[in-house]
């Protein structure tokens, strides 16, 4: 339906309707353009997937560190999480890609400098993965912490009173319930991460948004190209939210 309405919006003159030829799969050039645009899926998907997986690992680590016995561990974790949550993701991305290498090169030949050396020459893909992972990790830390704290204390005490260790209590009693509680918020974060991956266009990563922008500068058809771009994200997220619903239905809390 959207596809039939959009041409009308571009005006009724023959010339304007002809604008859609830029992505018309029945013409060789339109097909070539479309394939170029759709090729961005591979990068958008791998970037989002890498960030989501790393973000979950970071979030789980963060949530556990926030429950550490040592005050300084909690303090340091809290400070890092707040910092990453406060800095806009776009700024974080620019900083990781452009500023971080300068700092690391400045530390050349020190132990830390040598250790961080691989980060001095990040490709746009890995810089975007780093920034998106950190961002997702910070928000997931909060989601996981709330999920873990939502399990009633009495259930933990019951497990401990039976001689179950702290680790066993966490993996068998706390985590399974926490995962169910935090699933909706986690899915939300996944969706945000997929959408936010579009910011990587700014550092030249050829994902969906970048490809639409590049084609637009060549063809001057912003309406058609950015509409297709919006539809690409729509399709991607519809699939993702459908998957999420299936998973949620299977692990619904009692």
């Amino acid at each position, binding site marked *: 339906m959207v596809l039939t309405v959009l041409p009308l919006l571009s005006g009724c003159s023959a010339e304007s309707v002809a604008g859609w030829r830029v992505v018309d799969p029945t013409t060789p050039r339109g097909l070539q353009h479309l394939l170029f645009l759709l090729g961005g899926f591979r990068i958008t998907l791998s970037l989002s997937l890498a960030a989501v997986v790393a973000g979950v690992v970071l979030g789980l680590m963060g949530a556990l560190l926030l429950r550490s*016995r040592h005050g300084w561990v909690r303090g340091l974790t809290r400070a890092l999480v707040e910092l990453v949550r406060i800095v806009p993701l776009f700024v974080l991305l620019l900083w990781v890609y452009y500023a971080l290498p300068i700092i690391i090169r400045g530390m050349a030949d020190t132990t830390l400098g040598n250790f961080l050396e691989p980060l001095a020459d990040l490709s746009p893909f890995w810089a975007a993965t780093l920034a998106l992972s950190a961002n997702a990790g910070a928000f997931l830390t909060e989601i996981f912490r709330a999920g873990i704290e939502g399990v*009633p204390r*009495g*259930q933990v*005490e*019951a*497990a*401990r*009173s*039976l*001689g*179950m*260790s*702290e680790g*066993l209590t966490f993996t*068998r*009693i706390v985590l*399974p*319930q926490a995962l*169910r509680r935090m699933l909706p918020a986690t899915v939300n974060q996944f969706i945000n991460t997929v959408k936010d991956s579009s910011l990587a266009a700014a550092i030249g990563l050829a994902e969906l948004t970048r490809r639409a922008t590049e084609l637009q500068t060549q063809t001057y058809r912003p309406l058609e190209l950015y509409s297709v771009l919006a539809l690409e994200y729509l399709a991607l997220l519809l699939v993702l939210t459908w998957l999420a619903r299936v998973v949620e239905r299977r692990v619904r*809390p*009692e």
Partner: protein
Amino acid sequence: MTALISIRDLTKSFGALAVLRGVSLDISPGEVVCVLGASGSGKSTLLRCLNLLESADSGQILFHGTDIAPLARAHGGRAMEAERNRLRARIGMVFQSFNLWPHMSVLANVIEAPLRVRKLPRAQAEAEGGALLAKVGLADFADSRPSRLSGGQQQRVAIARALAMAPEVMLFDEPTSALDPELTGEVLAVMRLLAAEGTTMVCVTHEIGFARAVASRVVFIDEGRVAEDGTPAAVIDNPRGARLRQFLARFAE
């Protein structure tokens, strides 16, 4: 006969609030000790100290003659944590709010610790767990989720869960206080059965009738100390102190 648990001068404060002010109490094997006291008198804290869920500030808890109170005080690394867990497994606890795990079936609740702490083979754990559920009258509910059960049934599952570790003593922390009056009977019946089998039990309770009928000893705790200690007949029917008389009068109404 030597005491199974011997509590010596136990003190515990939460901030400025002194909850236990020097409790001393001996519990011999096979005894059923009912602990009475007004709310806030420290009786629940006493039980939680015995199970190392709270750390006492000073005093001793001798379990088979060994002081276990220091285990609760410091974290003390892996060896101490393992020792703590071994001890807790030998001391069963039933809570006021049941604290069943809602994401597991009733049977899974009962066999979780036997499987993972006692490391029993699954078949044996399930057989023992099934027998315990039958004992508390819930054999038909093995595959149900705890949320399907009434409060009284949930508490009976919690008792079976604690028994599954074959503990040497069972601690009951107001096991019927969260229940509707018509459901307390079924839980007390299970406790009566355990007492008749010779289980060593320490019950914090407001059920004076149960204490009179089942307890071998009744202890009245007042202001963080043991105020009266004796047979049910002596403590409940012939209270010496004014505080205990007041306390009992409220239940007689």
